[in-house]
C-alpha cells in the first residue's frame, strides 16, 4: 500500500474504486494464502478459498467500522473461511495426544547417550520438514503458529482474530511447540536410529 494510508485505501474501496481494492488484494494476498495453506490440508483449494476470502472482504468493506486493524479483520475472515471449509470436509488431521509416550524421556531412550542425542540434534534438519509436522497439528494451533511466526502478530491481535482470551493464545502456542517437539523426536529419532544402525 505504498504511498496510501490504510484509512485512505478503505475510503477509496468503499467509494467503489476497484483499483484501490486491487491494491488491497495485492498487499494481503500472500499472507491470506499462507494462512489458508497452514489451515487447509487439501492444497488444491488454496486459491479458491483465498478468492472467497477477498470476495467476502469486498462485500464486507462497507460494514468495516475500523475498530480493529484492517489486517486483523481480513485474517479473521480468512480464519472463518478456513474453519467453514474444515467443518465441511473431512480433512481434520490425526493429532498426537499431548500425553503421548513421545515425551522428554523418548529423546533419551531413542538417542542413547547424551553424546548421541547431541549428534542427532546437530544433524536434525527441520527447515524443510517442519511443514509436514505442522499439518498434523489441530487447526487452531496451526493458525496461532502462522500468525505468530509468519506475520509477527502480537498475542493480543491473535486473540482478537481468533476470538480467544490472550492466555489461551499463549497456551496454544506453547502446546503447539510441544506437539511439534514430540512429533519430531518420535519420527526424527526413529529415522536417525535407522540411518545409524
Amino acid at each position: 500500500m505504498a504511498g496510501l494510508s490504510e484509512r485512505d485505501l478503505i475510503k477509496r474501496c468503499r467509494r467503489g474504486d476497484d483499483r484501490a481494492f486491487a491494491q488491497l488484494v495485492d498487499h494481503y494476498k500472500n499472507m491470506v494464502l499462507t494462512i489458508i495453506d497452514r489451515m487447509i490440508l487439501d492444497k488444491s483449494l488454496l486459491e479458491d478459498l483465498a478468492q472467497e476470502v477477498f470476495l467476502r472482504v469486498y462485500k464486507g468493506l462497507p460494514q468495516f467500522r475500523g475498530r480493529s486493524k484492517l489486517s486483523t479483520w481480513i485474517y479473521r475472515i480468512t480464519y472463518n473461511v478456513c474453519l467453514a471449509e474444515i467443518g465441511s470436509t473431512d480433512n481434520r488431521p490425526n493429532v498426537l495426544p499431548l500425553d503421548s509416550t513421545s515425551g522428554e524421556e523418548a529423546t533419551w531412550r531413542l538417542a542413547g547417550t547424551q553424546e548421541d542425542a547431541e549428534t542427532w540434534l546437530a544433524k536434525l534438519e527441520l527447515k524443510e520438514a517442519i511443514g509436514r509436522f505442522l499439518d498434523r497439528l489441530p487447526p487452531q494451533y496451526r493458525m496461532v503458529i502462522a500468525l505468530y511466526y509468519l506475520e509477527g502478530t502480537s498475542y493480543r491481535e491473535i486473540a482478537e482474530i481468533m476470538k480467544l482470551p490472550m492466555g489461551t493464545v499463549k497456551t496454544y502456542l506453547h502446546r503447539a511447540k510441544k506437539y511439534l517437539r514430540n512429533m519430531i523426536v518420535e519420527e526424527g529419532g526413529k529415522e536417525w536410529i535407522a540411518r545409524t544402525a
Partner: protein
Amino acid sequence: MDCKDCLSLLSDYVDGALSGDFLPDIETHLARCPRCSFELSLLRKIDDALRAQRLKRASAGFTERLMERLPAAGRPVRTPALWDRPWLIGWGVGVPMSGVLLIYFRDEVRSFLLQLSSNMAHNIEDVVASALSWLGGLSPPPFPSVSPQIVLTASLTVSAIFMAWSFRLVARALTALRG
C-alpha cells in the same frame, strides 16, 4: 528449580517472555543440566525452523481473476448504522424533544407566539394598508385572526425542524470526527 519446572518454562524462555524473577534460576539450572539444555537446543531449532518459513506466493493473475469476479459478486451495499444516518438521529431526537418542550412550556409559548403573531399581523396590516393607499386610496380587507391551535401547530413544526437540523449537524460532525 528442578527439570519439571525448567521444561514448563522453556517455551517462554525461548520467546523472551519469561519474567525476570525466573531468569537466574532457569539459567543456573540449564548450565548444570544436560537434559534440559538439550531440550532448549531442540526448542530453539524448532523456533528457527518456524521463523524460516516463507510466505506462500499467489499465482500470477490472482488479483486479475478476482477483479473479474467482482461484478458478479455485486456492488457492496452499505447498511448504515444508526450513527451513520444523521438525518434519522436529527428527526428522531429533535421532533419528540421539541414536542415535549412545547407541551411543558405550552402556556408561555402560546402567549409569546400569540403576541408575536399579533404584532406581525398588525405590521402586515400596516404594510398592506400603506400599499393600497399608495395604489389609489383603496381600503384594506379585514385581516384574519389566528387561532391558538394554529399558532401552536406552526410553532411545533418550526421548532421540530429547527431541532432536527441542529441534532443532524451535531451527528454529522461526530461522524466526521470518527472518520
